[in-house]
Structure formats: structure tokens, C-alpha cells
């Protein structure tokens, strides 16, 4: 693990650690919590054959939508790609391998990795197609599904505030998968709107303790343009 004193990095340097073929968890549910700057840097650096793990595929031309469009994603583990017609088209053309999980199971598979478990045992999805794809176990007179933990080489997460040790605070619904992925990946790269000195974040308000975070980069707040593209009902 990176020493506390060596986590504050330039974005180029942080992303350069990611090799071709890496598995990468990406925070965010829709736009909130999506680490747009880290994704853009990944796009610029050219890593390919990526496996991405993200709740959704963002939207065409936004976030990981750009990586999918550029043909850089080999496999996407996700819960829903309904807002990204390009991703659906790539999936249907066989250019993008998509593995779908119910959203709460996806979250828990990541959390299970983050907690250091090998798997968890659930009744979610029993009686549906989901159950056909997984190993089952008889326990206490019922049949349950076994859901293995989902690890990744890297996680890209977005926080509102951070300190240079890597403590993170999320805002609003931008939390979503970020704290789970921060625990589950081997190397965790966090972007934050503000990276402050240790001691400036209130103890009880820290959502992700710095022990889980490998590198912190400071980014400019996303323009409203990125937000505005999200569907408004």
C-alpha cells in the first residue's frame, strides 16, 4: 500500500499506473459520483482491452460512454445500460461483452470483496434466470445462491472532499458505488474537488478512511454541461 505521505499525485501519473487489460471499477450512478476527469485521462492515455465494472454505462458521449465508443472496453460488468444506446448497440454487435447483475447484488459483490469475504449466500434472484447462472447451496432446508466477491485491479472514484492521506467525503447521491469500490480494488485512485491538509475533515463525516485509498488527485468541479446531459423527467 502507498505510504500516507505519498498519495497526493498528478492525474497523469496516477492513471499511468493502469496497464492494458486492467479490470477497473468506476464509481457513479448516472452522472453523480462518476469520476469524469479520471475517465477522460484514461481515454487520453489509450489503455485498451479494459474490463469495466460500473453500475451503468453512463450515456452516449459521457463518462465511460466515451471509452465504450472508442472501443477500449472489452467487457462491462453492470446492472443497467438502458440510458446508453451506443453500449446496447455495441453489445448487440458482439463488440462489448456485458455481464448483468441485479443492482443490489452487484453492490454487495463489490462490498463482499471490500470486506475481504470470498462470497455471500443469498436468496435474491432465486426463481429467476439469475439463479441459473450461479452455484447453489442447500442450507437450513432451502436452496440459496452463492455470489462470489467481485474484485478489481483498480478503482476510479469521485469524492467531494479529500485530504492528502486519502480520506474521502462524498456528497448527495454521488456516494452510490464509490465507497464500496474504494474498499474492493487493489489500487484505488480518487479524484476530489478539494484535497485538503490532514485534520481538516471532521472525523465522523469521513465516509472512506484513507487506509483504502492509494492515490488522490485534485480536479476542477465538473461543468454543468456534464450534468445537464443527464435525463430529466
Amino acid at each position, binding site marked *: 500500500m502507498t505510504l500516507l505521505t505519498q498519495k497526493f499525485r498528478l492525474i497523469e501519473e496516477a492513471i499511468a499506473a493502469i496497464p492494458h487489460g486492467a479490470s477497473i471499477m468506476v464509481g457513479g*450512478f*448516472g*452522472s*453523480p*459520483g462518476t469520476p469524469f476527469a479520471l475517465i477522460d485521462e484514461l481515454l487520453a492515455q489509450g489503455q485498451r482491452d479494459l474490463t469495466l465494472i460500473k*453500475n*451503468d454505462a453512463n450515456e452516449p458521449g459521457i463518462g465511460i460512454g466515451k471509452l465504450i465508443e472508442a472501443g477500449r472496453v472489452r467487457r462491462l460488468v*453492470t*446492472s*443497467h*445500460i*438502458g*440510458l446508453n444506446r451506443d453500449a*446496447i448497440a455495441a453489445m448487440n454487435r458482439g463488440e462489448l461483452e456485458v455481464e*448483468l*447483475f*441485479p*443492482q*443490489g*447484488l452487484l*453492490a*454487495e459483490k463489490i*462490498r463482499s470483496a471490500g470486506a475481504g469475504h470470498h462470497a455471500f449466500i443469498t*436468496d*435474491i*434472484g432465486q*426463481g*429467476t*434466470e*439469475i439463479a441459473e447462472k450461479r452455484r447453489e447451496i442447500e442450507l437450513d432446508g432451502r436452496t440459496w445462491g452463492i455470489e462470489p466477491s467481485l474484485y478489481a485491479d483498480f478503482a476510479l472514484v469521485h469524492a*467531494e472532499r479529500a485530504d492528502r492521506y486519502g480520506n474521502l467525503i*462524498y*456528497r*448527495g*447521491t*454521488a*456516494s*452510490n*458505488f*464509490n*465507497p*464500496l469500490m474504494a474498499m474492493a480494488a487493489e489500487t484505488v485512485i480518487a479524484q476530489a474537488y478539494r484535497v485538503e491538509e490532514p485534520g481538516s475533515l471532521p472525523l465522523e463525516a469521513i*465516509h472512506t478512511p484513507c487506509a483504502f485509498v492509494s492515490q488522490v488527485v485534485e480536479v476542477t468541479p*465538473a461543468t*454543468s454541461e*456534464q*450534468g445537464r446531459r*443527464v*435525463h*430529466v*423527467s
Partner: protein
Amino acid sequence: MSADQQRILVRAAREVIPGQIVNLGIGLPTQLFHHLPEEMEVLVHSENGVLGCRPRREGEAPDWDMIDSGGAYIATRPGASVFDSAMSFAMIRRSRVDVTFMGAFEVDEIGNLANWKIPGKFSPGIGGAMELAQKVKRLVILCSHNDKHGNPKILHRCRLPLTAERCVSRIITDKAVMDVTPAGLTVVDIAEGLSVVELREATEATLNIDERQLGRF
């Protein structure tokens, strides 16, 4: 919005009791948001990680960090909280959501629900529907009684891949309000101006109807 959809929403709003925690699925159920008075002490849960959301008021600036699971910018009401996706689904799996409203492709007599996949045609993912359907205390389906070709959506048995088995409590369509009971589907209310014969014709499922007890909506 059509008059039929409006009728469904007005009827659905009567299902919510002050003090409850409510989840609104994507599509028509989301619109129920606008039928819950702001002063009513109800917390709307959205599975992306917020409890206590409300629609933005006219002219209220969007907060880019605050959306619901459908991607709409929302605001929050007093008593709200935000949390991560694990916490959000723990709430669902522990049945801490009192009532969930959801759309449907198909519902059947024993309360099976299909609303996530049409093999070969539509499979954008599962989202949170599976957990919500399986674990919520009370699942109310809001959908048109028939599809756009006039085919019944209230079936003897679902033919599409299931979202969850035996999960539905009540179905509210433009034609009827039906409860899933051990004896099958029991019609509670029938739409104004519709006859029992017309309702049965528009439905594949067998309907238990006691005309003396039938409400109108």
C-alpha cells in the same frame, strides 16, 4: 400523460399512508411523486442512495449531485438522508421499504412479475427491480391493462423471464384494481364506465369478482 395514466396515478396515491417509506419505479410510478402532497410525512426512497426525495419546485435550480434512480434531478425534504448503494439495498432486502410501485410487462394470477427483459428485443439490464420486487413488504404494480396491440398483460402465468416470483400485492391498471390473494386475482375496483364482461374480455387471468363489493375509480 394520458387520461388512463392519470386515473392510475390518482388511484395509486390512495395507497400511500402518512409515515410510510415509499419507492417509485422508473416510468409511470415516478410520476406518482407529483401526487403526494409535499406536507405529507412520507419519505420517498430511491435506490441510487437517497431516502426522502421530492420533485424540484418550479424554478428550483438542479443540484448536480442529487438524482433519483431514473436520472431526474431531485431535491430532498426534512428527514432525508443519503447513503451508498450497499446501504440502499440493505434497506430493500431487509424490507424496510413499506410500499413499492413498479411498472410491468406481465403480471399473473399468483403474483409473478415480469418487467426486465424481452428476450431478443429488450434487455438493457436489471437495475434494482429484482431486489425491490422480491423483498418489499407491499408491491403495487401500475401498468396499462393491455399492451399497445391490445394484448392482455394480466395473465394466467407470465411468459417472459420473471423479475420475481409471487411478489405482487396489488395491480392498478386503467381498467381495474386487483389484489393477489391465495384464491387468485380478486378485483377490488373497476374503472368508471367499464362492465365486468368488458374487464374479463381484456384480461387473460381468471378474475374473482364480487359485484356487490366492487368499487369504482
